[in-house]
């Protein structure tokens, strides 16, 4: 009896601390998004006043029209989409194919090759930046989306991820059975393996898509022609424009962020669990 009475107010205050901490963190996380929206709706003279506006204004359409006059927003979004979808589809195919080979096929030097792939994950991408740029320019791919797509297909983490998944998810007996039925290895991969690893495709797909969509340094280096800019490079060009029209700049970043947020809110459960799975297992 003595033990119960003093814990109750203590527990209450603990709860209060808990909720206020989380609410504060949530507000800090969300406020910049809100403020981005507010600025995207304000004319420049309101933005330049002190204190800054905290409520939306009326220039939502004007600011976005100005964005369209400065950069090819939808073109850039299209480029981002083409690049991200191609890299995602292509690397999911290549990673699962290699993952299948490493998990289920016997060949000489298999384990050594796999270790080699794991080692390549430790190389920082900046190390080969300059020669890669040179190779791309020699191939004539500067300002060509191929410059992002083709090198993007190499994904050591993806192979690792797929190998682990296929090893666990598909029993050897299933593959043996398909073999007795006369299936070639590629047919086994296509008709037996791929349908069984759809969750692994989804998880890796989200990770790859996000990484490609948000990549900046490499596209900045190789996509020199404005018509090939991805969204990230185009946004940078927008914020570097000489007349610092903040309403316009934040309108651009706001509308570039909205699709990502919508996708995230729709799939947030899958999103969060896939990223933690991907992260923790690496």
């Amino acid at each position, binding site marked *: 009896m003595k033990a119960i009475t003093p814990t109750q107010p203590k527990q209450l205050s603990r709860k209060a601390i*808990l909720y206020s901490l*989380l609410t504060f*963190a*949530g507000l800090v*996380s969300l406020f*910049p998004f809100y*403020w*981005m929206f507010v*600025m995207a709706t304000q004319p420049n003279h309101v*933005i*330049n006043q*002190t*204190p*800054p506006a905290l409520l939306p204004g009326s220039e939502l359409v004007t600011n976005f029209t100005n964005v369209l006059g400065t950069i090819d927003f939808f073109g850039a979004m299209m480029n981002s989409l083409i690049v991200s979808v191609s890299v995602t589809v292509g690397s999911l195919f*290549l990673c699962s194919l*290699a993952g299948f*080979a490493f998990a289920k*096929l*016997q060949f000489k030097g298999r384990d050594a*090759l796999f270790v080699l*792939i794991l080692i*390549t994950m*430790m*190389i*920082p*991408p*900046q*190390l*080969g*930046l*300059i*020669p*890669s740029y*040179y*190779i791309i320019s020699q191939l004539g791919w500067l300002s060509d989306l191929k410059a992002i797509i083709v*090198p993007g297909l*190499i994904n*050591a983490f993806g*192979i690792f991820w797929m190998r682990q998944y296929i090893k666990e998810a598909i029993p050897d007996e299933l593959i043996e059975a398909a073999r007795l039925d006369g299936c*070639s*290895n590629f047919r086994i991969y296509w008709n037996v393996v791929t349908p069984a690893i759809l969750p692994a495709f989804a998880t890796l797909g989200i990770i790859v898509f*996000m990484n490609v*969509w948000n990549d*900046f*340094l490499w596209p900045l280096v190789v996509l020199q022609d404005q018509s090939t800019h991805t969204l*990230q490079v185009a*946004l*940078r060009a927008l*914020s*570097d424009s000489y007349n610092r029209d903040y309403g316009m*700049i*934040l309108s651009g*970043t706001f509308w570039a*962020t909205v699709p*990502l*947020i919508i996708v*995230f809110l729709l799939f*947030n459960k899958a999103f969060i669990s896939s990223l*933690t799975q991907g992260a*923790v297992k690496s």
Partner: protein
Amino acid sequence: MVSNSEKYTEKKVKRSMSQEKRNSIAGYLFVSPFFILFAIFGLFPMLFSFYLAFFKWNGLGEMTFNGINNFTIIFNDPIFWKSIYNTVVIGLLGTVPQLIVAFLLAYALNAQALRFKNTFRVAIFMPYVTSIVAVAILFSIIFNSQSFGLVNSILGVFGVDPIVFTQSEWGAKIAIATMIFWRWVGYNTIIYLAGMQSISSDLYEAAKIDGATLSQQLRYITLPMLKPFILFTVFMGTIGSLQIFTEPLIFFGGNLREEGITVVAYLYRDAFENNFFGTASATAIVLFGIIMIFSVLNLLITNRLGRGKARKA
């Protein structure tokens, strides 16, 4: 590989041997795209960087051998050292508080009988979904040097004069570190939360029965069990910090000032603005060395902690 006695056995074995052969052909075929692409876009550029680091080259004309001069040049460049110093300071400012806060948030989110758990989780995680470019643009306006910048106008309420964030030693670093903090804190929270949820509740029950206080539970159960997750985030944070580039480039609007230039930004400017491909490659080699040192250190620490745990048990 195949012994003689096996060769002379029946048809059945022969058929399975050809199956073996087919398997290895398919194996090599299926893994070859990675190695072909890696040879062109990974291995060759890497080796070429080591080569290029000893040459003078502007990307177009002749390459002339320069010995270790490229390294001498960058080691004598105060901005190079400044970029290393900035990278470390920004990395520490952005990562250390971030991981501590992430741990607290995960601990709070893991509390029993917490309502709106998913709402909090989604809100805290959302910054991670945005692109770094968008975050950097947004925060460069929040940290705008004029009095109308959000941070400056809040400081103004307390009577502090506007800080020119882009041109002050600590202002630039704090602004860049804040961007990193804001974008990554939710991500690490979710990693820690995943770790905490993997700890069996039996352990806590047993501890409660033994009369352990909350801080004792934290110290003897949560922290040790979370060790692999903490090491993962520290490792990723370190490697990520060493590669900071987008934030300073956007924050300074292309004019990379020495208050906030990082190693990768230094490399980028050398190569793609000044066309000094040789010295930029030398910088890349040094960066590679630093990352390798941190990776090895991290491996050693991980092993040591692992051993310590084994000894205790």
